[in-house]
């Protein structure tokens, strides 16, 4: 299917913004600037962006511990995101959530989630709200191959199916649940095959092919908006980094890792698809790269220059009387 030029440019910019953001987070984490844990999304950009290309700010999203890419694709401000990772008062959650709980209700982004399988029931909730209010808002429920083994996902698939909720369940199968390969932890080769058990459409696609993701998501989103119920979309992908920063990744196969970082890389494949056909020019890509790099530099400067929250902030945004 043809993607309009302005959308193609948006797609490239968002994918590149995720890549540069995550690469920079890795660097800053290495310098000790970012406290706690980070789980990087680089390598999976085509999934988040190919799906979010069909959304508006009014649509909802639930995410995972690997949620930075989902946020960027949904339009969350990278300055606020970076400041949040640095634990600063200017962070999108005032420095009270951090990497694993980054959220922006104004963008329908209902939070990254530190609990594997924590998101799908929440997605049923935003789906129920949209259905009850009679709007055409959809919810994207991202989850990994690891979460596909959680009971919450199965309960949620069933709930969404019986209530015909406007949800697109997106399995980001990057091959590993932490260090455990999908071929060990999952009873089926394709997670989407499980859709049949819940009487909903299920498709498995190459998640590093932006165009395949875009097209499948188009269909699933249209179905949800039309009130025809949920779908399960499995995107096979790969993460460039470890499960968390600091993971030695001894479980990965070296050749496979190299192949996904080069010829199977989603951004390279996007460029290879658009440049020869003249859909986007080298100059246009270069201009975007420049803008993205400047935005991430600025985000890091903003995060570094921002103050930490006052300790009194510990006691706000929750009921306390003790």
């Amino acid at each position, binding site marked *: 299917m043809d993607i309009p030029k302005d959308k193609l440019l948006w797609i490239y910019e968002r994918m590149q913004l995720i890549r540069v953001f995550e690469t920079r987070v890795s660097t800053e984490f290495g310098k000790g600037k970012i406290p706690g844990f980070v789980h990087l999304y680089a390598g999976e950009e085509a999934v988040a962006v190919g799906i979010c290309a069909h959304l508006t700010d009014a649509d909802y999203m639930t995410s995972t511990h690997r949620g930075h890419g989902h946020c960027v694709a949904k339009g969350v401000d990278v300055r606020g995101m970076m400041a949040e990772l640095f634990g600063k008062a200017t962070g999108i959650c005032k420095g009270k*959530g951090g990497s694993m*709980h980054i959220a922006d209700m104004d963008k329908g982004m209902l939070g990254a989630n530190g609990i594997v399988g924590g998101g799908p*029931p*929440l997605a*049923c909730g935003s789906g129920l709200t949209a259905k009850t209010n009679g709007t055409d808002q959809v919810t994207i429920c991202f989850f990994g191959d690891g979460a596909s083994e959680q*009971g919450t996902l199965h309960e949620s698939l069933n*709930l969404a199916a019986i209530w015909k909720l406007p949800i697109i369940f997106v399995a980001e199968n990057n091959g590993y649940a932490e260090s455990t390969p999908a071929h060990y932890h999952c009873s089926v080769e394709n997670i989407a095959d499980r859709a049949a058990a819940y009487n909903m459409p299920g498709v498995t696609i190459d998640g590093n092919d932006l165009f395949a993701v875009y097209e499948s998501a188009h269909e699933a989103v249209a179905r949800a908006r039309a009130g025809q119920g949920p779908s399960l979309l499995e995107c096979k992908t790969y993460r460039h980094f470890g499960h968390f920063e600091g993971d030695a990744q001894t479980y990965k196969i070296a050749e496979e890792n190299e192949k996904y970082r080069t010829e199977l890389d989603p951004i390279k494949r996007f460029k290879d698809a658009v440049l020869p056909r003249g859909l986007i020019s080298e100059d246009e890509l270069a201009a975007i790269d420049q803008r993205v790099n400047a935005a991430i530099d600025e985000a890091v400067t903003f995060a570094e220059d921002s103050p930490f929250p006052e300790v009194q902030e510990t006691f706000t*945004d929750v*009921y306390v009387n003790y």
Partner: protein
Amino acid sequence: MAERELNFGEALNEAMRQEMQRDPKVVIMGEDVAGGADVDHLEGDDAWGGVLGVTKGLVKEFGRSRVIDTPISESGFIGAAVGAAATGLRPIAEMMFVGFMGVCFDQLLNQGAKLRYMFGGKAKVPLVIRTICGGGYRAAAQHSQVLHSLFTHIPGLKTVVPSTPYDAKGLLISAIRDDDLVIFFEDITFGGIKGVVPEEDYTIPFGKADIKRAGEDVTIVAIGKMVHHSLTAATELEKQGKSAEVLDPRTLSPFDEETVLESVEKTGRLVIADESHPRCNVATDIAAMVADKGFDYLNAPIKMVSAPHTPVPFSPPLEDHYLPNPQKISEAALGLF
């Protein structure tokens, strides 16, 4: 005109009906809250209206899009209630028995209780979870727990334990209008309790204890069913020449420390009756608070009457032995003189 009396369940039902009439965002969801979904011959009417009939009749007035039967998927529907609350609805979810919270604990502990805080205040979770609690129904270990202490421990949750139909209605309306996640405990033995309940809607503020019986010699702080046992105990104590004040906190989080301290200042003696297991429960929490802030008021050690540190047994003589009762409370009080 004689004042109208309702039983406990009727008071709750009226609270939900009035709030659903007032606010279209209020929905009810849970297992068999209507019952008989998709059963043609019921023509949309309920089969059960909840396992104890507390939501009876609501589906007829508000329809199945607002009184939503769920599958037996506690994680799924409690999580969905959290997500719906975060995105604009005001759900009342019914968790049939509090023991089933074990099934969906992550959605409460790590999701519902924490979203507002983790998101820097941008999310709110106006959700009420109504749940049946308490022993005495011969329902055995998984269906007889109180567990309010467990939930009171968790920041981001509010806990409400009404003891009368009047309190039940006013506290439930407050819970529905509250922007935080509220766990609302309904004792399984309260079905037969009747009391005066005004017809109009009214709220009872959280964190305001109620003195159910005024007295001079000993304060009995009692939670839920223990309020009734303590009132019975107070009558017995009266015969022994001791005047007991029975204080019902009504909400455990928030908790009205001030009223407890004022009462202890007056009486100089404190008994706390809590059906919880004895370690790390609300009774120990109140005892610690009074020891810290009201030590000088005390003329005797603080006594706690709780259930033992065992699961709730099934066999009637065992369960009767397990549960706190008026005699245990009055004996504890007399021991302070």
